Structures are given as structure tokens and as C-alpha cells.
């Protein structure tokens, strides 16, 4: 049985590195994308169980990625964890409207994010 695959879309290399590290430790297979274009490319090539999506991305924004995901029949049930920050309520409510599954606020707790990814991945595999 292959590992559960998770895609991290985040433009900050250090955050990508930390997220990759903790999720790999939790036995996920992790792919990363530093911008929206790369994220969409990866989504079209592989099947992911969970998508972790930063909202503030250069170029194609996180919201654009989310909208693309939800409008794709193959991806419309993919759980999406959106990384937000306090003080960005407008972005959060927009993400909710576009069909974000969960929200995690930066700076996040490693434990919380791993638990959340496990939950959603389990839900999908059922």
C-alpha cells in the first residue's frame, strides 16, 4: 500500500521545509509547490489525499487555486486545508465560500496540523 499523498502549496521555503518534515515524520508522502502554477501542474499529475494551501501566493493566488480545484470534477471532493492568518477575515470568508474544508491559522501548532491532515486523509480513504 502506497503512502497517503499530501500537497503543500506555500511560497515561504522555510515553512514548506518544516511542514514537509513533520508530515513525512507522520508517514505521509509530501509534494511541495512554491506557487500556484506549479501547484495546479502537480494536481493534474497526481492524486492527493489532502491539499495544504497558503492563501498569499505570488502570481496565481491561493484563492485562484482553490477555485480551480473545486471546478474540476476530479478534484471537487479533495479536502483542502487553507493556511490563513488573523486579520485576514475577508480572505477566510472568501475561501469558505469557494469550498475550503478546514482552516489553520499561522503560526500553527505542528500537532494540530498533523492531526487535521490525518483526519481528512482518513475521511477520504473511507
Amino acid at each position, binding site marked *: 500500500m502506497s503512502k497517503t499523498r499530501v500537497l503543500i502549496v506555500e511560497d515561504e*521555503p*522555510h515553512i514548506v521545509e518544516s*511542514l514537509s518534515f513533520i508530515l513525512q515524520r507522520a508517514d505521509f508522502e509530501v509534494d511541495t509547490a512554491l506557487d500556484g502554477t506549479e501547484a495546479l501542474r502537480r494536481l493534474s499529475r497526481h492524486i492527493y489525499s489532502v491539499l495544504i494551501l497558503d492563501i498569499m501566493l505570488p*502570481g496565481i493566488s491561493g484563492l485562484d487555486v482553490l477555485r480551480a480545484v473545486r471546478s474540476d470534477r476530479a478534484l471537487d471532493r479533495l479536502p483542502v486545508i487553507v493556511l490563513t492568518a*488573523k*486579520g485576514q477575515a475577508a480572505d477566510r470568508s472568501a475561501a469558505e465560500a469557494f469550498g475550503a474544508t478546514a482552516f489553520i491559522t499561522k*503560526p*500553527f*501548532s505542528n*500537532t494540530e496540523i498533523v492531526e487535521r491532515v490525518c483526519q481528512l486523509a482518513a475521511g477520504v480513504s473511507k
Partner: protein
Amino acid sequence: MHQANFVVFVCITYVAILFAVAFAGDRRARKNPAGLLSSPLVYTLSISIYCSSWTFFGSVGSAAKNGLEFLTIYLGPTIVFAGWWLFLRKLVTVGRVHHTTSIADFISARFGKSPVLGALITILALVAITPYIALQLKALTASFQVITYPAGAVVAASRPLEPDFAVAFWLAAGLCLFSIVFGVRNIDVNERHHGVIAAIAVEALVKLVAFMAVGLWVFFVLSRTPDLMFRNAPASLMSPEEGFAARWVALCFLSGAAVICLPRQFQVTVVENSSEEQIRTASWMFPLYLLLINLFVIPIAMAGLNNLPPGSDPDLFVLTLPMTNGGETVGLLAFLGGFSSATSMVIVSSIALSTMISNHIVMPLALRFSLVPTGGGQSARNFILVARRMSIVFTIFLGFTYFWISRTSGALASIGLISFCGLIQPLPSLIAGLYWHRATHRGAIAGLAAGFLIWAYTLFLPSFKGAFLMSADVIANGPFGLNWLNPHALFGLDAFDPLVHALFWSMTVNTALLVIVSLLREPTPLTRFQATLFIDIFRRQTESELGVIRRTARVSELRQIADRILGPVESVSLFDKGDVEPAVIASDELITLVETRLAANVGAASARSLVSRVVTSETISVDELKRLAGEAEQIRAYSAELESKSRQIEATAAELAEANDRLREIDVQKDEFLSQVSHEVRTPMTSIRSFSEILLKNRDLDESRKLHFLGIIQSESFRLTRLLDGILDLNFLEPGTQTWEVTVFDPETAIDQAIETCEPLARAAGVRIKRGRRSRNARVLGSRDRLTQVFINLVSNAIKHNTSANPEVVVTGAAGRKGFYEARVTDNGPGIPLKDRELIFTKFFRGQKARQGGVGLGLPISRQIVERFGGDLSCTSAKTKGAEFVVRLPLRFD
């Protein structure tokens, strides 16, 4: 007949009673000024001196000759009093408030306290009143003769009685004495003669009762059947077409004007008035009195015409009817009534005229030629008293002279009308004075003088019928045979009888000149000011000269005048205010107060003249005058002010709206900025927290991994520090926060210092820094440290972003065109896309490539610094591949 001695005895007794009334009246008035003597009844009765012997004897005579025409003499006054609200109320209020002493004082005060005007009106009144006084003397003399002659002798006389001038002389002398003792005992402070008014009121009652007694006697004793009464009615009485012709209108106007303008009427109506209540009551009670006294005129006239032989003098019917028909007691009463009406008129007229003569002729002359005694005590007051007494004697004997000259002519009524026509000449000035701001003293003088001359030429001089100044030939044909100058048909106007003719010309020319001459010149400031006080009397009664005219005078000199004119008692009350230290220089208030008190005694013009002798400087405050200027001007000014205020408010509102927009914009920017800052802070915080948690939970990590993670934590911490520094820098650059030390310096030194600082970084990155062209002796204004910071930022950016194989940075400086210094920092790196060249200067801008540890604040801060010194920072494309930043700063040449 009555014995002459008996009649004299009755007269003297009657006069004695009047004296007693006058003294009692004065005493009561001192004790209780608001008592019976100030009652509307007494006031109205005193006004009835309008009914002189002309009324008492002349009305019957006029009715017998001209029918109902006599009524016009009472119709005019009735209209004036019934319509008191229109004119009389204002006239009386102004007179009361300004302590007017006579009609001359009133008009002179109104027109800038003009002494010429006061003197002119006084002379006019003196000349015009003379026939009137003569009239009273004539009536008195005739009545005395009738009552003392045997009844048959009077009746037998087919033509009017030859006057006995001995009787007339003694009557005139008696009247002088009477008037002097009554009216001029002191120069009364407030010019109200309570005693005289009380006596006049008694006389008014006596004449009314006497006349009605004669009427009732005629009705119930003489003419028992109405048939007898109407057997021989006068033809004129029965022909109504006479009514409402030009003469009727003219007579109504004349009498209406006379009841205001006659000196004695002005005296009792205006000067003696003490409240509006009085005039309110008089408005109906005086017409009622006129009605009562005229009730029996027609019956008496008809009885006279039927009972007495043809040719009998109808002016004496009131006396001759009872005396020849066995009613001797009624006759004596009628004599007393006539005596009352004549004496009361002469007394009040002579008092009024003596006040005018002393205040407007004697005082000004005496002041000019320094004839007023300067000694202490009462000498100046005595001088004025003597002047007034002399004036009374003069006035009465002038009347006597007229009587003597004109002994051959004129019925009572026609003499009275001549007098009326002259005395009403001040009317246009009076009306203009109360309603027209623009009227000037020159206009008033011109109008009055012209009216006076026309009256004298067309009516007064011809009344002597050639016996005085004007020959009978001139009267008939005009001077030098020039018929267009005919006194009774000026410019060929012969449609009217002489009275209407004179009235028409004098009033027309008078009014026209008043208007035209007034319009020729602006009123003087004082006239304008007085106009406001008079015309706007109901608007501001408390206004005084205070504040408008600023004067200074020495208290000692002012007091000297007050002592002399007002007497020591009042002077003390004016000047000694308890234990207050007496001032040397008099205040405005004190000067005005003294002048007001003086004006109540000697008239406004003389008071002003007196005070101005000791006033050392006099200025009229323009501001105050402006304040008092017409209401319309004020409203205009006010609305203009409102307009400019509303414009100001609009402008302010626009500014506020603009400021509000700016604030809102700044607020939005601030929110955005905060949001960005929070994001920028969260990013390193997220890494730091996450890696710390990893390190804490994963003790089994190998050393190199641990070090790597710790390195990340460290670098993100540095990033946080830089971010904070940048934010603080930004804050520092916000307008109005702080000023740097600003000097004039060579910008090349800042470049040198920046390159020196960046050298280690460049070496580490393998980038070469080339120092290109440099300017000589360029000078800019600013902070050298801050400019160095800008260059460090630009050079380090060029180093960090340079991905070229053979990286280099070139820095040049030059004094460029248009007075600007230009420094360029050029690299051979990847360059900056055109669309980002402006965006890179916005805060927290992220380039397409992930940043090399920058926080996105360096370029915005650099640009702000350069702009702060009047220059600019921009990104252009380099000639070769790479980015080029240009710093421009204004050169200083001093």
C-alpha cells in the same frame, strides 16, 4: 349795561381766582407730579386754547356771513387729533423725549441744532402771531365796550364799533403783567408750566360754560318758538354749493396744520405733554370740546340776524343779543367767557414766544457778543428772565401796534386766517424732520424763508390795505405795474381768493425748496444723527449722543456754565457725586448730561453753543454713525456678511470633506499596512514556532539536521529584527515626525561611504563594485547619513539579486541637467520587468522570485528619504542587460 368799574372789579376778581388756581397748581405739581395736573383732562382743556376769542365771538360772525364755513376751522384739528396715531403721537413723543422748549427748538434741534433755523422760525412766528394778538385785543376791547355801553347805543350803531384805544392799551398792559407773573417766574427746568396750565384749564371750562349758557339762553329764553328762529335764515347758510370748494379744503388744511404749528398749540400739546396717555385721551376729548363749543353757533347767528337791526356787527352777537334783550347776567358771563378765551391765548402765546425769542434770538446774540453776565450767582439766570419778560411785553405791544394800524379793516376770522397761514410755514420742515432722513438744515431754511416771504407779500402786507409798507396801488396792480407780481394773483393765478392763493403759493414753494435744497447736499453728521433720533424715536428711545460724538472739556469750565444757567441747586446735583474725587476732565456722559439740562432751559441750539465754548475737542465717531445709519444699510450689510459667512462655511465644509477623504484614505492605507505587517511578522514566526516544536519533539535528530533547523530559526529571527527596524524607519519618515540634521554636503562622499560598507558583502557574493564617473564640487542639501543608507540599500540589492556569471555593480555620479545631481547604480543582473518597476517601491512588494531574506521595505524607505530632500528615486532599464536605479537631488549653488 354794567358799570365799567364793576366790570373791571369782576375781571380783577376773576384774575385773582386764576392766580390762586395757578399757585395751588404749582404747589400740587411739586408735591405730586403725577396728580390731577398731569391728567388727560387738564391736558385736553389746555389744548382748547385753540378756541380763542376768534372762536368765542368770531364763529357766530362767520356763520352769519359765510354759513357753515366756520366749521372747517374745527374740522382740520378734529382730523389731526382723531388720527393722532399717524403723526401727533410721533411729534409729541419726540418733543417729550428731547425736552423740546418750542417749535423753533424742535426744528432747530432736528436739523443739526441750527441756530439760524431757530432764529428764522422765531422771527416768522413773532411776525405772524402779531395779527392774532391784535385780534384778541380787538375782541377784548369791543366786548368791554359793549358790556359797559348803554344797550341802545350799541344797537343803534349801524357800523362796527369804533375801538377805544385807551381801553385796548390798558388791556394790553394788564395782559403783559398777567403773562409775566404767570409764565415767567423762573426759567423752569423741564419747561412745563403746571400752574399756568391749571389756570388755562379753568379758563377753558369757563369759556365753554359761558358760550353754552348764551346758546341755551337764546334757545329757551329768547327764541321760544322754532318758527321765530328760522324766519330769516342767512342765504349763505342755505346754499350748500359753497361747501367742499377749494376754500373749504384749504381751510381744513390750514386749521389742521395750525393746531400743530401755532406756537401756543405746540406749547400745550408737545412741550407740556408728560405722557402718551394724555394724547390718547385728547384724541377724542378735544374734538368733543370743539363739537360742544360749536353746538350753538348757528342758533345764535340766526337769532342775532332776526333780532338785531341790519348792519349790527355779527362778531359781537354773543354779547349784544343778551345785553339788548334783558339778559345782562348772561351777558356778563359771555364777557367773562370771551375774556377767558382771549387772555388764555395771549398768555400761552406770549410765554411760548418769549421762550423762543430769548432762546433763539437773545441768547445766541448775547453769546456771540459776550453779553451774558459772567459774574457768579444768579446773574445769567436773571438775564434770561429779563429777556423773557421783555419778550412778552414786546410781543403783546407788537399786537397792539398792528391793531392800531389796521383799525379800519378786517373781521375777526379773516385776521385769524392771515395769522394761521404764516404760522404754519414750519409744517413742511416739521413733517420732513419726522419722516425724511435726507432733509437738511439748508433745505429747511430755504423752504421756510421762501414760504415766509411769499406769505408776507401775498397776505400779511396787503392786510393793512395800504396803511403799512405796501401801497394800495401795489395791492391792486402789482409793483411797478407788473401785474404778474400782483400780491393776490402771482404769475396770473387769480382763480383763488387771497387766502387760498397765499396758502397755495407759500406751501408749494416752501415744500419744493425744502426738497430740492436738501437733495443738493448731504446732511452734516450731526443732522444725520439727530434725524435718526427723531425719525426712529419708537425704535430706540434710550439712544443719546453718547458714543457718537466724543468731546472733552474741563470740569471747572463746564460747571461755570451750569452754575450760571441752571442755578447752583441743580448744578450741585449734576457735579457733586458724594465723596467721589472730582475729575479735571469731564467725561462724555457728563458733557452730554449738562447739555441736555441746558437745552431744557435755553433750547438745543443755544445749549450746544454754550457747551461748545468750553469743549476743547470734538470728534464724531464714524463707526458709531455707521451703526446708526439707516436700517436698510444695516440689513444690507448683515446679509452681505451672512453671504460671505455662508461662503466661508461652504469652503470650510469642502476642506473638511477633503480632509475627511484624505483621512479615510490614510485609514485604509493604515489597515492595509497593518495587515501586511501582521502577515510579514507571521511568516518568520510560523517558521520559528514550527522548527522549535520539531526540535523539542524530535530529540533523535542527527546533529547536522538540528544545526540546519537552528540556522533557519536564527535567520528568521534576524528577518523579524530587520522587519521591525524597517517599520520603525518607515514611521520615522512619516511627515511631521522628526527632522534630521540637514546640511549641505557633497553626495559623492555618501556614495564612497556606502561602497565601503557594502564591500564585504560584495566580496562574499563575488560581485565587483566599480566606481565610475564622479562629479566635482556638487553640493546637495540633506542628511548625509540618510543618503548613505539609500546607497547602501541600492548597492546591496544590486549585489544580492545579481545572478550573472560575471557580476558587477557600477556606481556613477554627475551634476546633470536642470540643476539636479544624478547618481546611478547599475548592475548586469537579470533586470526588473517593466510592469514591476513602480511596484517595487510599494511596501512589502514581493518580486516574482522569492526574496533573498529581504522584507520588502528597503526601496520604499529609500524613495521616501530622497523625496524628502526634494529629489526622486526611480528604476530605469540599463543600456545593457540588468537593472539601473537613478537618484536625483536638487543641486545647491550657494
